[in-house]
């Protein structure tokens, strides 16, 4: 019975397992993507370069900078949600054995 059940249900179970595994993987990929500010920072540097090279004007720069700032804030929020470190904001020296 066990074997038969497996065989009979295989086409159904298979894809379900497969789907679960895929979802976990997607979850991780999405999480990595949501919490990585490297591409946003690269976009900011590229934007600055475009302004320096005279490829865009000041108004365009300001407009696109605002978009990038929004994306940076979103990444920060996701990082906070996942309990990851963020830069900026209030900090202090981490307490350790040798502190005063």
């Amino acid at each position, binding site marked *: 019975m066990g074997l038969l059940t497996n065989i009979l249900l295989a086409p159904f179970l298979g894809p379900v397992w497969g789907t679960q595994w895929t979802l976990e993987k997607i979850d991780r990929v999405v999480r990595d993507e949501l919490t990585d500010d490297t591409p946003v920072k690269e976009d900011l540097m590229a934007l600055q370069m*475009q302004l320096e090279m005279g490829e865009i004007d000041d108004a365009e720069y300001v407009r696109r900078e605002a978009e990038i*700032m929004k994306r940076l804030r979103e990444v920060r929020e996701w990082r906070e949600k996942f309990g990851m470190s963020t830069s900026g*904001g209030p*900090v202090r020296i981490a*307490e350790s054995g040798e*502190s005063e």
Partner: protein
Amino acid sequence: MTAAESVSASTDPAPGEGKYVYCIIRNDRSREFGEIGIGSGARVYTVNHKDLAAVVSDTPIVIYDPTRENVLAHEFVNETVMREFTLIPMSFGTIFRSENDVQALLNSTYQAFTDVLDKMKDKIEFGLKILWDRDKVVASLERDNDEIRRLKDEITRNAASSTYFARMQLGRLVEAAMEEASNRYVNDIHEQLKDVSVASRSNKVIGDRMILNAAFLVERRDERSFDERVKAISLQYEDLLTFKYTGPWPPYNFVNIKLKLEKAT
């Protein structure tokens, strides 16, 4: 940051008022740098500990976006300080809750700051970004590279009969020659700047026209020689390359102190 640390309630006064830290210098007395701080010209002054000082301004406890305006404000303070001092730049947006917390930073990192200040004494940084004009470089390759020129002539002569593969082969040749040329330019430029700089660091290039994004650490007394050398090189390559030369900067790319900081919420 370890999980074991208990986040004890801050004993410091003045909730909502923090210290934005720009850089660390060696100075055993307090100093004022004027009303040039981030957030509409806050007063910039020092918090001292022994012979070290943190250059700070008062700020509400906020997270500063790295907008051009904010980054320029941060940068302007460091430039001002740099005229008189060797400095260790702090990363943009670093805020401590109180003067006590800033002193704790200076105290706990005293040795590392001191070592780096010694190492960076009288040194400044220059940025050099080099972009190329793809079309011009391709044209120069077609002129100077026999194999490419021959294949190209062949394709042009037999336009009708020239195969897809011949074109593809040309494309590959050009790609390889471009990469080779880019390496050659970059190596040559590094080589020419070697004896007027102390160290260099290459960062990731930005966009598809850039072939070099480097920082050079230079002795203050060599500033002029470095300057002149860069100008000479840019003249040498003026037909092919665009030079973006910036500085002097604080040694952003040559200081790497890992501060053990935790969130002070």
